[in-house]
C-alpha cells in the first residue's frame, strides 16, 4: 500500500530568519505504520507537492494552526480525485471538528500501537471517521526511532550547513501554562521515555546537532540528570527548552552538549538576569523567548522589557504575540470576554494580533512587536548573532573531534533552492 505523507506549508513571518527544520511529527507517525505501508513524504515548506504521484491513501500531518487551511485545501483536492485522506498531528487535535469536514478520517491522540487497526480498517473498506485516543496515551516505551530515512536531507541544508534534527525524550507536561495547549494534547502527566531507548534512538541520528523539542526538560530532576549523564559519550550538541536551574543539572547539561536553550523572559527581575548568567557560566547560550500581549502588560511594561533584554546579554531573542489557540486558558479568557476579532487561522502565527489587548489597541501592540525585533537586532543582526552561536558550537565540535565541515556541493543552495547572492542574507541564514 502506497501512502503519501504530507506536511503542509505555511507562510513564514516577514523580517525573521527563515529556518526549515526537518519536521518531527510526520516521521514519528511514519514509525508507527505497519511494515507493508510504503511511505513517500513531502514537506511542502521545502519542495512542491506533486499531486500526480500515485498513492492509495494520503495522510496529512499538521503541527501548527497556520497549517490547517492549507492542509484542508490539499485534502479537498485529493478527495476530489477519489483518494482517501487521513489527518493527524497537534493541530488536527486542536481543530478536530473543522478538520473532519475535509477528511475521510481523523486520528486524535498518539499513534503508537494504533495504526495496524487503522490500516486494517482502511483495507477492509471500513475506515472510521474518527479514531479518538484523546486522553488515552499509549505506553511511552512504544515510542520507537523516528523514520528519519524519509527526509530528503539536501533540502534541510543552508549553504552546505545541515540543519539540526528534531528529537524528543518525553511527552506530556505537568505544567499548565497560560498560552499553551500541551497539557490538553499530551496529558498533564510528564512521561519520560526510558533512557536506554532514548539513547539508542539518539545514536541512530546521523547528525551531530539536535533540537530536543520536549516541552520542558525541567520536569523531573533525577530523570533529567540521568539523561544528560548518558548523553555525554554521544558528543551531540543540542538546543532545548528550559533546563532545571540547578548547578548540578546545568553542569551535566553542558557536558552532555547543551548548545543553547530557549528561556522565557517574562519580566525585568534580577532572577531572569541571574538565570541567563547561570546558563552562560556553564557555556550554554540563551535565546530569550518573549511573549507580548498578556493582560498584565502595559505599553510601558513592554518598552521596559525591551530595554531590559538589551542589557542581559542574550545570545538571541524571539518575540511573539499571544495567539489564543483553542484549548488554552488564553483562548477561554479572551473568548468569554468577546475580545477575539480575527478567526482566520492563517493569522494565528504568533506575529499578528488577533484579539483586543487589555491595555492598548491591537495596532499599538503590533507596533511594539515590530519595534522589539528591530531594537534588539539593531546593532547586531540576527544573522550575525546566529553566526556567533554557530562559531561557538563549531569550536566545541573541533575540540571533541565531531566537527563536520560544510558540504561544499551545497554551498550555493539554501533549502533546495539556489542562493540569490544579490539579496540581503537576512532571511537566508
Amino acid at each position: 500500500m502506497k501512502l503519501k505523507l504530507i506536511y503542509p506549508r505555511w507562510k513564514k513571518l516577514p523580517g525573521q530568519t527563515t529556518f526549515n527544520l526537518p519536521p518531527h511529527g510526520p516521521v514519528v507517525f511514519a514509525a508507527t505504520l505497519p511494515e507493508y505501508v510504503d511511505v513517500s513524504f513531502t514537506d511542502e515548506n521545502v519542495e512542491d507537492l506533486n499531486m500526480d504521484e500515485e498513492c492509495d491513501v494520503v495522510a496529512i500531518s499538521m503541527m501548527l494552526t497556520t497549517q490547517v487551511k492549507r492542509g484542508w485545501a490539499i485534502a479537498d483536492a485529493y478527495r476530489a480525485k477519489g483518494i482517501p485522506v487521513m489527518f493527524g498531528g497537534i493541530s488536527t487535535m486542536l481543530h478536530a471538528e473543522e478538520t473532519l469536514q475535509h477528511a475521510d478520517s481523523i486520528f486524535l491522540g498518539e499513534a503508537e500501537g494504533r495504526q495496524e487497526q487503522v490500516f486494517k480498517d482502511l483495507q477492509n473498506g471500513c475506515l472510521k471517521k474518527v479514531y479518538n485516543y484523546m486522553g488515552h496515551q499509549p505506553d511511552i516505551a512504544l515510542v520507537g526511532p523516528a523514520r528519519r530515512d524519509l527526509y530528503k536531507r539536501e533540502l534541510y541544508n543552508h549553504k552546505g550547513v545541515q540543519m539540526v534534527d528534531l528529537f524528543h525524550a518525553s511527552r506530556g507536561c505537568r505544567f499548565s501554562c497560560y498560552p499553551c495547549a500541551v497539557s490538553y494534547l499530551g496529558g498533564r502527566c510528564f512521561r519520560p521515555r526510558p533512557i536506554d531507548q532514548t539513547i539508542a534512538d539518539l545514536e541512530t541520528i546521523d547528525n551531530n546537532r539536535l533540537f530536543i523539542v520536549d516541552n520542558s526538560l525541567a520536569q523531573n530532576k533525577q530523570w533529567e540528570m540521568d539523561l544528560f549523564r548518558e548523553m555525554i559519550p554521544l558528543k551531540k550538541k543540542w538546543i532545548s527548552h528550559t533546563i532545571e536551574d540547578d548547578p548540578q543539572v546545568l553542569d551535566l547539561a553542558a557536558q552532555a552538549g547543551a548548545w543553547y536553550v530557549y528561556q522565557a523572559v517574562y519580566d525585568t527581575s534580577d532572577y531572569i538576569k541571574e538565570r541567563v548568567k547561570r546558563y552562560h557560566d556553564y557555556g550554554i547560550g540563551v535565546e530569550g523567548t518573549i511573549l507580548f500581549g498578556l493582560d498584565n502588560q502595559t505599553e510601558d511594561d513592554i518598552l521596559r522589557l525591551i530595554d531590559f533584554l538589551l542589557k542581559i546579554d542574550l545570545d538571541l531573542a524571539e518575540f511573539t504575540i499571544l495567539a489564543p489557540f483553542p484549548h488554552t486558558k488564553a483562548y477561554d479568557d479572551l473568548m468569554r470576554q468577546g475580545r477575539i476579532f480575527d478567526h482566520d487561522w492563517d493569522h494565528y502565527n504568533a506575529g499578528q494580533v488577533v484579539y483586543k489587548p487589555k491595555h492598548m489597541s491591537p495596532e499599538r501592540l503590533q507596533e511594539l512587536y515590530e519595534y522589539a525585533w528591530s531594537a534588539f537586532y539593531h546593532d547586531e543582526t540576527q544573522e550575525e548573532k546566529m553566526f556567533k552561536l554557530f562559531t561557538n558550537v563549531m569550536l566545541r565540535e573541533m575540540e571533541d573531534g565531531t566537527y563536520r565541515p560544510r558540504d561544499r556541493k551545497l554551498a550555493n543552495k539554501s533549502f533546495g533552492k539556489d542562493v540569490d547572492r544579490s539579496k540581503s542574507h537576512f532571511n537566508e541564514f
Partner: protein
Amino acid sequence: MKVPEKYYDEIFEFAGQWDMPSACGLKTIHKDGKTYIITTELYQENPGTSITYAGGSLIKQICDRKNLDIRNIIYIECNPNTNSKLSFYDEEMFEVTYQVEEGTPTNLTYRQLSKEEIQIIVD
C-alpha cells in the same frame, strides 16, 4: 496550583471534548427560589477539557445527572484564585446565559460578575 476546596462541594466528572475524561468543581446553591450552579476550573486537577471549552455540553451533563431543569438554573463559571503569582489565575466569575436547542445550551454568552454580585450569591 491547587484549587482551594472552598470553591466546590464536590468534584464533578464529565465527558469533555471528544469524550476526554474531565473534571470540575461543582457547587449548588439554592437561594431566594433560584438554583445557582457554579462550576470551577480545576486546572492541573482537570485531566481533560476546560469548563469553558466544554460549555453547553457540561451544563447539559450537570442538569441531566442532577435532575435540574436546564432552563431554570443560573449557571456560573468560576476561575478560582489559586494564589498564583500570575494575575491570569486570579478569581473571576462569569454568569453564562444561553438558548436551549434540542435540550442542549447553545449561543453561550458570558458576563463577568462583580465582587458584590458574587457576595450576594455565596453568602
